[in-house]
């Protein structure tokens, strides 16, 4: 495990990775899952067709440090804020990070609505890990 992949408590970072809704593009999410694993992150890969409820449930059971969502269907402005709100309503303090196809002009809106970080196509392993690390509350 690299230092970068450790949470502040010294334990490895635990990250949920999921696709929300109907979107079936899972290439990017799988690549990120393997990248993170190779870097020492503990990945809980939920895969396709998840709902806010199934993700919250997994986050609680797995004591996750962060939730990573991959979005390729232009539904992010609806679905990502909904996930953020669901996390809050569940009383959890877990950052929601979004990756995938997000037009530049939408990034500010997502951040304003509580998304912790937005990763675009071409993000490197280091950038992904840094985004998670910077988002996890210390």
């Amino acid at each position, binding site marked *: 495990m690299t230092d970068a992949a450790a949470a502040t408590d010294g334990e490895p970072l635990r990250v949920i990775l999921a696709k929300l*809704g*109907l*979107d*079936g*593009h*899972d*290439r990017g999410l*799988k*690549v990120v*899952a*393997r*990248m993170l*694993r190779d870097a020492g992150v503990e*990945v809980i*890969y*939920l*895969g*396709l*067709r998840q709902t806010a409820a199934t993700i919250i449930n997994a986050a609680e059971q797995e004591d996750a440090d962060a939730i990573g969502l991959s979005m390729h*269907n*232009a*539904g992010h*402005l*609806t*679905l990502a804020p909904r996930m953020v709100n669901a996390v809050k309503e569940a009383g959890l303090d877990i950052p929601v990070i979004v990756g995938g*196809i997000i*037009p*530049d*002009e939408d990034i500010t809106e997502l951040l304003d609505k509580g998304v912790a970080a937005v990763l*675009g*196509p*071409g993000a*490197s*392993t280091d950038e992904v890990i840094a985004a998670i690390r910077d988002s996890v509350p210390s």
Partner: protein
Amino acid sequence: MSTEPSRAAWEEAFAQTPERDVDFETMSGVPVEPIYGEGPYPGQYPYTRGVYPSMYRSRLWTMRMFAGFGTAEDTNGRFKELLRHGGTGLSTAFDMPTLMGRDSDSEWAEGEVGHCGVAIDTLPDMEDLFADIDLAGVSTSMTINGPAPIIMAMYIATAEKSGVERSKLAGTIQSDIFKEYQAQKEYIYPPRPSVRLITDLMRFTSAEMPKWHPISVSGYHIREAGSTAAQELAFTLANGFAYVEAAVAAGLDVDDFAPRLSFFFNSHIDFFEEIGKFRAARRIWARWMKERYGAKNPKSMLCRFHTQTAGVSLTAQQPENNIARVAIQALAGVIGGSQSLHTDAYDEAMALPTEKSARIALRTQQIVAHETGAANVIDPLGGSPYVEWMTDEMERRAEEVFAHLDELGDGSILEGVYEGIENGYFVGEIADAAYRFERNVNAGRRIIVGVTDFTDGDEGQKNLLRIGPEVEEYQLKRLASVKQARDNAKVDAALAQVSADAADPTINMMPSLIEAVKVHATEEEVVMAMEKVFGTYVEQAIV
């Protein structure tokens, strides 16, 4: 069509089709022959050099641009625009809820209505989609798989209402379910009932719609999901063999339906590898159809395919560079002998194309067709030591995969494909390849211009096509008004018939599906009527 591999036989076959009325000469006025080099010649088994004797000397490929967004009316406008600009076939993209068999008012659909394609809930939507387009005069491709028989039923009902008999309809419906479990992940039912639906569709079109292609066996999505070129080739053709075995098991004669199978490949950026792949695809399909499946009709042996440039190769950074990528990929598709071609728009890494970017994409293939001379000579790279070697190498790698699947299926490719879906073979191979590629990029071993290197000058994305919330609002109202106006007793009876037919595998589903959409049952209602019997498919989340 001649199967004799002689030059004389080819010349005779070539002479039977009139050539296009253009000057077949270079820019400098040097006349060029239709073919150079050795046989077997185009149109001769095993068709490595082309499926037809004259290829683009007599007719250019179909420039078929994939389109769909927003409401049916929006897409209808784009269709008419493409036809006006010289497009010669329609190709329909549906939104994600439609592809997954969900209506626009489903809770799963929220935020996705009309975003990745057009939203179709009921027959009136389909009627809007093709309004004022003569369905007897165009060929239409519809990219849908899980609910394909329902959408097919809507298309037939739309045509018949406008006075066009179903036997006159020309086009393709993708309905390739295997690659959904392997790559694209837009499945509804488990594999076996899904294959039953597809064999019903094949039987129905074989009997009633002679100009229709009931399956487009698609490698495109396998490649986009991360496979190599050889895996795309191998998995796609293996899926094709599996459909052949399924149809034969359902009592069809191979020569009755195989001529209506068509294929769909990706054209990626490694120019010579792609051309080798296309050539190998024709040769492998011909050999297997003849030798393994006993096809007698040469048309059963023809691997005819649509090609689309590689969406996944488009970059969000410096998006204008994508025009160059698309041009190279389009040229590979043409030199590879595609029957139709879609060229991606440069802004598609981030959004659906705008009218302007879609027009540039079409212009790109028009430049390949009319300026480059690539359409003057058939298989112009045939005989090149590198391209011939690459063709052989693609074939060798594909044969290794077929041997594995044959073993998995105990002598049946169909069972091998089912097993490979169930045991995660396909998704695992594709994910491994995708990860290998990404690691190479990350490690600086593979350059992507504008992304990993040469990154100066990115002005970002401008003028992206945005689908506003008004599409969802419009579609919800439209669906509500259709539901209110219809006769619910008729809908209930039609849906009960769908469920009853689903429970009896000896009955063809198509007639009851057509009846159900005619009384304005929604797509999701029909999906659910079958789901009661078929169940659903949930994939194991494996990384």
